[in-house]
C-alpha cells in the first residue's frame, strides 16, 4: 500500500489536505453545439456540449409539460490507462443517469414542453473526480447554450485517505484510498443534487467530509462563473 499522506500532511502530488488540483475552464469551444464547455481538472480533460431545446425524437418520448432531458457521459477509448471499449459500460450508463439527475433540478424544463435538451459529455482524459468535473462543465455548457436555470450546478469530491478527510481525490488517491464522496450542489439554493459515497465513514467523518465538499463547491463555482463571464464577453465582442 502506497503512503498517500506524508509526515508534513502533504499528499502524493504535494497538495495540502484541503487543496484542489488546478482547474481550467473555457466555454463556447465548439461550433456545432448550441453550448459547450471544456474543463481541465487535474489530469481530467472533459468536453461537454448541449443541443436544445429542440424537437423531440422519437415523438412519443416528448413530455407534455416539460422538456425531456437527455444526458450521455462517455469516455474516449484512450482516456484511461487500459484502452476502453467504445461501447458504453454499465458504469457510464449509471453516471449518465446520476449526472442528468444532478443537473435536472437546476433547469427550467417546464418552460420548453414537448422539446428535448441533450447533454453530451466526453471524457478525453480521465482522472479522479471525473463525474464532478463533468457536472461542472455540463452546467456551464447549458448556460452557454442560453438555457434558463435556477442556479448553476457545481461539483467537488472529497474522500478519506490514510485515515484523513481530504478534498478532491486524484486517480491514485481514489484507487488506494478508503472513501470517495462526490457531491454536486446548486450553491445559491442550498441544494444538494448529487451525493454518492463509497467506503466506510463514521457519523462524524461523514459530517466533516460533507461540509468540506460543500465548501469546495463554492470555490469551483467561482472558477465556473469566471469562465462563463469570459465566454460571454468573447461572444459580445464577436457580435
Amino acid at each position, binding site marked *: 500500500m502506497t503512503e498517500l499522506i506524508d509526515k508534513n500532511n502533504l499528499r502524493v502530488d504535494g497538495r495540502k489536505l484541503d487543496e484542489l488540483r488546478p482547474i481550467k475552464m473555457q466555454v463556447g469551444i465548439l461550433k456545432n453545439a448550441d453550448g459547450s464547455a471544456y474543463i481541465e481538472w487535474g489530469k481530467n480533460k472533459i468536453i461537454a456540449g448541449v443541443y436544445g431545446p429542440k424537437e423531440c425524437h422519437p415523438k412519443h418520448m416528448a413530455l407534455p409539460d416539460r422538456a425531456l432531458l437527455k444526458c450521455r457521459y462517455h469516455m474516449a477509448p484512450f482516456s484511461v490507462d487500459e484502452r476502453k471499449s467504445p461501447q458504453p459500460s454499465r458504469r457510464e450508463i*449509471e453516471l449518465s443517469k446520476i449526472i442528468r439527475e444532478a443537473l435536472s433540478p437546476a433547469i427550467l424544463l417546464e418552460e420548453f414542453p414537448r422539446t428535448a435538451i441533450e447533454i453530451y459529455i466526453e471524457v478525453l482524459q480521465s482522472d479522479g473526480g471525473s463525474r464532478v468535473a463533468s457536472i461542472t462543465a455540463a452546467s456551464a455548457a447549458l448556460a452557454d447554450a442560453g438555457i434558463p436555470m435556477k442556479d448553476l450546478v457545481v461539483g467537488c469530491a472529497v474522500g478519506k485517505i490514510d485515515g484523513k478527510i481530504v478534498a478532491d481525490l486524484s486517480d491514485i488517491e481514489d484507487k488506494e484510498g478508503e472513501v470517495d464522496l462526490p457531491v454536486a450542489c446548486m450553491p445559491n439554493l442550498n441544494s444538494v443534487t448529487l451525493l454518492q459515497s463509497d467506503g*466506510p465513514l463514521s457519523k462524524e467523518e461523514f459530517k466533516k467530509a460533507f461540509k468540506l465538499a460543500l465548501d469546495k463547491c463554492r470555490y469551483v463555482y467561482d472558477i465556473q462563473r469566471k469562465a462563463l463571464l469570459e465566454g460571454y464577453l468573447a461572444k459580445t465582442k464577436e457580435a
Partner: protein
Amino acid sequence: MSAAERKHEFVDSLRRRQIIDGLSLGKRTDGRGLTDYRELKMEIGAIVKANGSAMVHLGNTIVLVGVKVNLGTPFPDTPDEGILTVNADVLPIASPYEEPGPPDEDTIELARVVDRGIRESHMIDMSKLAIQPGKKVYSVFIDVTVLDVDGNLFDAVSYAAVAALMTTRFKKAVVKGDEVIQSDKMMEMPVKTIPVSITTAKIGSHTILDPDGIEEAVMDARLTTTFDSANRLCATQKGGEGWFTPEEILRQMDIARVKAKEIRSVIKEAVKNAKKS
C-alpha cells in the same frame, strides 16, 4: 426515457397533492408512519440449484436473488481477490412499465448500488475467495430477478442479496499440481459484516422511509444509504430529479442509522432460521 420517468407521467399532480397533504398530517396512503417499513418477509434457500438464494417480500414488492459460485480468472489489478458480479433483471411481468430487453439505466443503477453496498462495506472477505493468486479465484454471480414492483427495489434487493450470500455454500476448490479442481467439501461465503440499505424518499418538504410504488412515482428525490454492522456509512446514492438540503441529508442519515439496526436483526433472524432447517 426510463420506466421511472414514464411512470411519472401517469400519476397526475392531484395524486401528489393528496399524498403531501397526508404526509403533513403524518399519514401515508397505507397508514404507515413516516419512518415505518412495510412488512418484510424472507424466504431463504428455495432455489436449490443456486449456491444461495433468498426471496424477499417488502410489502407488495417481490424480488428473488440467486447466488452462483464458479471458478474464474482474477482481474489483473486484484490478482489475489475473488470476483463479485451483481446483475439485475426487472422482469416484464413485474410492472406494466417494464419491457423485455437488456437492462435499462434504472436496472443498471439498481445492480450497481446493491453491488457497492456489498463491496464497499467489505461484507465478503475477497482475499478468501482467491484459490491460486493471479490464476484462479472464485467468481461469485449475484443474479437479481425482480418479480413484482411496488417501490423501494434498492432495499428489497439488497436484503435478498445479503441473505442469499450469508447462506451461500459452494464446493471448495483445491490446487492439485498445476490444476484447480472442485472438491466435495463445502465452504461458506466468508462474511465479515452485514450491510443494510435504508432508502429515504423526499416528497415536497417531507421525507419518508421505504417508499412504495405510488410514493416513488410522486417523489422528488431518493437517498439510499448503506450501513455496516459497526453502523458506519458505507455507501450512498442520491437519485431522482430533485434535491436535498444538506440539513435534510444529515437528518436522514441519523434516522437511517437507527433503522438499519432494526432491519439487520430481521435479516439475522431469518438467516439463523434458514440455517437451522
